[in-house]
């Protein structure tokens, strides 16, 4: 049962990858990429967790309590906001691809011409 968080992270990665490969719509593909990103958040926070620990905010707890790791929380919280903007960049690329090829199906887009 203690393997469950890692199993969920692996499952999210694999199902997102399956969605990317079998996608028929570029916008659907970009959202599946965000599912793959969320698997890394789950993995990071699962690694940093400590049994019986609490959040490392010392506003109302005493100094000697068991706290979870703050570094993985730092990495994940900046990552969540930044990846939203990167998804916006990918969606802008999708809009331009639709403008160029007239379709959103990745299988029907031709190769890049020089």
């Amino acid at each position: 049962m203690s393997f469950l968080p890692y199993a969920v992270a692996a499952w999210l990665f694999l199902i997102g990858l399956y969605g990317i490969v079998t996608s028929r719509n570029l916008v659907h593909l970009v959202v599946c990429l965000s599912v793959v990103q969320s698997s890394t958040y789950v993995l990071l926070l699962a690694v940093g967790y400590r049994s019986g620990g609490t959040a490392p905010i010392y506003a109302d707890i005493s100094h000697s309590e068991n706290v979870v790791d703050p570094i993985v929380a730092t990495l994940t919280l900046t990552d969540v906001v930044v990846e939203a903007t990167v998804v916006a960049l990918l969606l802008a690329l999708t809009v331009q691809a639709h403008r160029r090829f007239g379709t959103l199906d990745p299988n029907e887009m031709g190769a890049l011409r020089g």
Partner: protein
Amino acid sequence: MTAVQIAALAAVAFGGTAVVLARDPARQALVTSVYGLTLAILFLAFQAPDVALSQIVVGAVALPAMIIYALRKIIRREEVDREDR
């Protein structure tokens, strides 16, 4: 592992599968919003309130908005193309 964490992990696994299996992008935007909320509950269960706050505002507000506006831009172009033809 507490019961809340197990339930949240199961909800996240189902939510991720639902996001991938929703093939229509407009519907997928709404499922993404709900998936973002389940992720936020999971992050709270893992004792990371900052990350949960980030995930709520991004995954439930900003990300579906961007998906829907990108779709709108694409559909507008298709409508104009169809009118021209």
